[in-house]
């Protein structure tokens, strides 16, 4: 049907009054092109645009449990932001978020790259072991955090009993405010290694082996081969892994809630857990939205970096 109607104007109209038909065709092709974009645009607007806009609006309102029944949320301007920025928990949360993200990313990346390089050599069971490495990724987060909570328990935890065999006294992993953040970072690193290893491993696979052969002739072996051949070849993959890792780590809630609930004494409180606490424990949705907007801005900056890097990679 559509094919025949498209052909007809061309066949019947002589060359002179071609303009209206062409314009219509161009219009129609433009229209068709837009129609392909519409479903995606609607999807993004409904499932991503609306929540973000709503969140921004909410942060300027006194949005409480009452709002859900009456629909009234008085406009309070920047009062929520003022409350957030003046609270001492917010300052602690910012510092903890920075430490948590930086610590997790550095360790995840270093260990992930090490494992990826290790698994590039083929040895018996290497495929099986690489599969096992994905396990942390497959477990529900709340289940693995419950297991880790038990492993890290001060009095009867498996880790401390193991250390006791070597003669080290019980370590207050989740109990001491100075150790809790380190313990939480450790568990998050354990969770993040599969992601880093998998992506970096696939990056390593795409480095042509000829380069190493040629490099070996020129004396580039061992660390030199890594520094002059491997690293430049996977640099774009590395930046993608790091930037995505930052965005994923910034928003971690479940592991922290499962392990410490932000405690002891707020020592593992991050922006994400703070926002959760304000919204769903204190039911101050306006303040919770203000905290999460801060988080959104930070994540957005890193998302932009990611886009810039991936665009550069395509140009190269």
């Amino acid at each position, binding site marked *: 049907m559509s094919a025949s109607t498209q052909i007809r104007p061309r066949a019947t109209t002589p060359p002179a009054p071609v303009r209206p038909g062409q314009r219509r065709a161009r219009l129609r092709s433009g229209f068709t092109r837009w129609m392909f974009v519409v479903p995606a645009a609607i999807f993004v607007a409904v499932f991503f645009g609306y929540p973000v806009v709503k969140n921004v609006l909410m942060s300027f309102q006194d949005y409480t449990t009452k709002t859900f029944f009456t629909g009234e949320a008085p406009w309070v301007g920047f009062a929520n932001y003022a409350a957030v920025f003046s609270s001492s928990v917010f300052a602690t949360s910012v510092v903890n978020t920075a430490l948590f993200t930086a610590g997790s990313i550095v360790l995840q990346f270093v260990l992930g790259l090490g494992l990826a390089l290790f698994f590039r050599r083929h040895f018996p069971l290497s495929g099986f072991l690489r599969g096992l490495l994905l396990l942390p990724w497959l477990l529900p987060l709340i289940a693995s955090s419950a297991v880790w909570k038990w492993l890290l328990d001060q009095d009867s935890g498996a880790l401390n009993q193991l250390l006791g065999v070597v003669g080290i006294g019980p370590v207050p992993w989740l109990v001491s405010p100075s150790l809790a953040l380190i313990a939480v970072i450790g568990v998050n690193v354990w969770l993040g290694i599969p992601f880093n290893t998998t992506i970096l491993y696939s990056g390593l696979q795409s480095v042509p082996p000829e380069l190493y052969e040629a490099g070996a002739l020129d004396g580039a072996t061992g660390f030199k081969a890594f520094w002059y051949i491997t690293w430049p070849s996977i640099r774009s993959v590395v930046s993608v892994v790091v930037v995505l890792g930052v965005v994923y780590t910034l928003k971690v809630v479940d592991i922290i809630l499962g392990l410490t609930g932000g405690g002891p*004494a707020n020592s593992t409180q991050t922006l994400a857990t703070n926002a959760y606490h304000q919204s769903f424990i*204190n039911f101050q949705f306006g303040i919770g939205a203000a905290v999460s907007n801060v988080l959104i801005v930070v994540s957005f900056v890193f998302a932009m970096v990611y886009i810039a890097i991936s665009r550069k990679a395509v140009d190269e």
Partner: protein
Amino acid sequence: MKPGSRSTSRRTRALVGAVAVAATVPLVLAGCSGSGNASSSGGGGGGKTLTIEDYYDANYDPVYQQCAKDVDVTVKINHVAGAGLISKVLQQASSRTLPDVLMLDNPDVQQIASSGALSDLADYGLDADDDVPGVKGANTFEGKLYGLQPNTNSIALYYNKKLLADAGVEPPKTWDELKTAAKTLTKGSTYGFAMSNINTYEGTWQFLPFFWSNGGDEKDIATPEAAQALQLVQDLQDDGSLSKSSINWAQADVNNQFMAGKAAMMINGPWQLPALKKAKNLEFDSVPIPTRTGSETVAPLGGEAFTVPQTGDKDKMQLAGKFVGCLNSDKMQAVLAGVSGNVPTNIEVGKTWAKDHADVASFVTTVQTARARTGELGPDWPKAATKIYTAVQLALTGKADPEQALEQAQSQNQ
């Protein structure tokens, strides 16, 4: 290279298709859930159907069925996971799909009532005049009664009979006795005392008996009386009688420590009784929580209230009112207490209950003088509760001494 690239593009197209299909799934599901709700509220055949929402389990269904028979309705029971109840209620409030009978934890009643989602129970001829005074206060907001609580609970000091007898220790009545007893009972891997000091409302709830009995007040927690109470818990930890892990323990964890024989005494509630009775080789009893001078314990009131939300259907709300009245009747209070292990709220029913059930006697005593958490601050209680557990955590982690911890927490802009 060409065939390969063509196959990937085909794969990409298939993937895009799959994603598009997956994206429509939530829409379809949303449609289903909407129609599901509509059909359930319209149904019922001859008699009307009431929907009930709670965070209990199927053990309570026979109780509901009994009252359904009395009121001549059929009931549709919906059990929700404890932590998810309030978010569910808020969602239902905004979509106008609240159940006909709603169970709420008593400290949440005033907050939900303040939103206008609940109806005044006086409209159905109900009152709580024969119940423990604290319970009535917890369910009253701006002079109106919004919830009825068939059962209530509180916390007391459980002790392991065998461990105390072996050490020749009597159950403590004062703080000094508690400290000495806990120290004597601490041996090897067994701590003398256990309680929950976690950074949630559970931690606040467990600290309240020490705090309130000594004259602490939630309006301003930075007082010498409050500091004394916090110092007691700090001393118990410094003596080694209380594990440092208590700042990560929920009440269920405390109960596990006690059942495993790793704690000789613990603070916990009557809802643990079914589990405690099942534990082998464990002989236990409980006494009211010790106070500094041995005076009466002021502990917090627990338990769940039943409310009638504003659903707009006047006839059904009347029936729901009758249903809640039935749940709160003397007879059903006792039946519910048998299921939950808690204490009947009616003063007379409670006294009779204590005679037949020796293991809840200490709780019946405690409940008479107990206070509602929302009694003083109403819907603002959560803010104070956050300050209280923050202070406890600051002190027990050694970040501040008790006095400073309370000051910091009080001034903290939450």
